[in-house]
């Protein structure tokens, strides 16, 4: 099952015109009760985000003194954003840039490694290939956080703790990504095409980078996007690996601000709370936008992982 198939079969299904007119009429009948039920569910999922948006326009005092799900009399979103960016000499900007750096390097690296590995396992037979692949597949079930503490201890010996590498290196190995790319490569890269290129005298590296990688594109983007999200959202690993606030990604930074806001008595006197709330809003905007723009990719990619077992 290639990931192009779901979209291919989905397209005619979504389009209204159908062979017989009677079917078409039945298809166009919408259910109002079901729509209302789903809109209620939707409200649950959007409620916290709506609250966050409203809360970002408030001062800490207003957070306590006005109703949470509506604006106060003095909205100050821009002031809050400015204060978030300038607090502690602009450490929030550092966190944002760190997060982008960690997430992008990890995602590109992990996607390329998984693509090369998946292609190698799908298109070549060599001694031990089965064993090696099963070893990686078994690792899909090993939880990353169970690995984090031992990895920290190893990295501490190697002097890698408290450097960007401590976050990037563990994120490069994505066993599920390799599994996904192997499935994808098996169908998306035809053997006949590879043979033809070989007969034309192309080297294996050239075939991979010039031909295979292009055919693997959608799968590659899927692994890229999911590693990006995983690294962007990662909290446990940077929490244990880093102790220099200038190296924090946004998750650990926000958590440290939240702890400060809490220790400040949690009262209206501390103005950290407004910064935590506004910082939270600012940190989710890029990913939400990326997901909405790239939805074609993650949907088809998820289909590939979910269909073939």
């Amino acid at each position, binding site marked *: 099952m290639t990931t192009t198939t779901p*979209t291919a079969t989905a397209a005619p*299904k979504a389009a209204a015109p159908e062979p017989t007119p009677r079917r078409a009429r039945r*298809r166009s009948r*919408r*259910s109002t009760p*079901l*729509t209302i039920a*789903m*809109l209620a*569910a*939707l409200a649950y*999922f959007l409620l*916290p985000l709506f609250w966050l948006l409203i809360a970002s326009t408030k001062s800490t005092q207003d*957070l*306590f003194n006005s109703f*949470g799900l509506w604006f106060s009399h003095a909205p100050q979103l821009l002031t809050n954003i400015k204060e978030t960016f300038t607090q502690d000499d602009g450490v929030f900007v550092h966190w944002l840039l760190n997060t982008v750096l960690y997430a992008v390097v990890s995602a590109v690296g992990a996607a390329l*490694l998984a693509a*090369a590995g998946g*292609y*190698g396992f799908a298109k*070549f037979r060599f001694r031990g*290939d089965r064993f090696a692949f099963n*070893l*990686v597949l*078994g*690792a899909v*079930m*090993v*939880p990353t*956080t*169970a*690995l984090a*503490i*031992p*990895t920290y*201890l190893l990295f501490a010996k190697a002097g890698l703790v408290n450097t960007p590498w401590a976050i990037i*290196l563990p994120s490069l*190995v994505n066993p599920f990504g390799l599994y996904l790319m192997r499935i994808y490569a098996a169908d998306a890269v035809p053997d006949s095409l590879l043979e033809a290129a070989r007969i034309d005298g192309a080297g*294996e590296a050239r075939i*991979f980078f010039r031909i295979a990688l292009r055919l693997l594109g959608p799968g590659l983007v899927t692994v890229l996007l999911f590693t990006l999200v995983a690294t962007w959202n990662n*909290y446990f690993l940077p929490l*244990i690996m880093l102790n220099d606030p200038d190296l924090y990604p946004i*998750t650990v930074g*926000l*958590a440290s601000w*939240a702890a400060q806001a*809490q220790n400040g008595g*949690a009262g209206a006197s501390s103005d950290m709370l407004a910064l935590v*709330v506004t910082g939270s809003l600012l940190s*989710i905007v890029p990913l*939400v936008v*990326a*997901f909405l723009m790239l939805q074609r990719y993650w*949907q*088809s990619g998820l*289909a590939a*992982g*979910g*269909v073939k*077992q």
Partner: protein
Amino acid sequence: MTAVRRRRAAGPLFVAPFLALFLLLFLAPLGYAAYLSLFQNRLIGGNVFVGLDNYTQALRDPQLLHGVGRVALFFVIQVPLMLLLALLFALALDSGLLRLARVIRLGIFVPYAVPSVVAALMWGYLYGPDFGPFAQLSRDLGLPAPDFLSDGWMLGSLANIVTWEFVGYNMIILYAALRTIPQELYEAAAMDGAGAWRIAWSVKLPALRPALLLTLLFSVIGSFQLFNEPNLLMKIAPDVISSSYTANLYAYSLAFTGQQVNYAATVSFLLGLVIVIASYAVLLTANRRRTP
């Protein structure tokens, strides 16, 4: 001849970079944890080999057992609820009966793009007694405020956060799988007189098996290593969430607060083992049921 030989050599070269990092960053830490778990750092005598002593200690450690028990309970309650919701939403989206289907699908999925840290902070504030809207509303109505952060509610409150984060993700996996069911199957079923519910039960559900299994496996792995949400709510409810509330939280506090490196490695290793065993148990039960 040389071309054939070069081609044989190419396969290992493509997989080598991944496997090298896999060895260094996956197998080596696992091996190191296993090695560390066999030693103890004592005041007198320094680092001593103790065999399986750490494991016998861990298996009788009430804090660890409670932590594992709590995540197991969390798994048993939260995961079926989350997957059932995801399944119902996916079937509703696929039924073609919805207006605004696209908006609904994306809206339910959006929480997946929210970091769990932000999700836990947001819900923590929403739950809170001071400026959480639920407490505000109950105060306005003269009712006692629901104490979502109390001992009795906490596990449910955590389950709600995790459900909020992951229903959309699971829904998309299931929905994508539904879209791959060939149209002819529906036509054949309709020809045989099957209604919408019958089609959902007899055609769609069996076709969803692999996707459901995948979501279930990811959920096993996710719930047993529960850490971020309790770690953040701990700061607003320190009396309810102890440093050993979940197994992973316990391993963390052992390593970084207690400095008990060897014991922390043991707990990590055991937790990993529990998750692998639970995952295989899920796989085996699923596969056995397939061949009745």
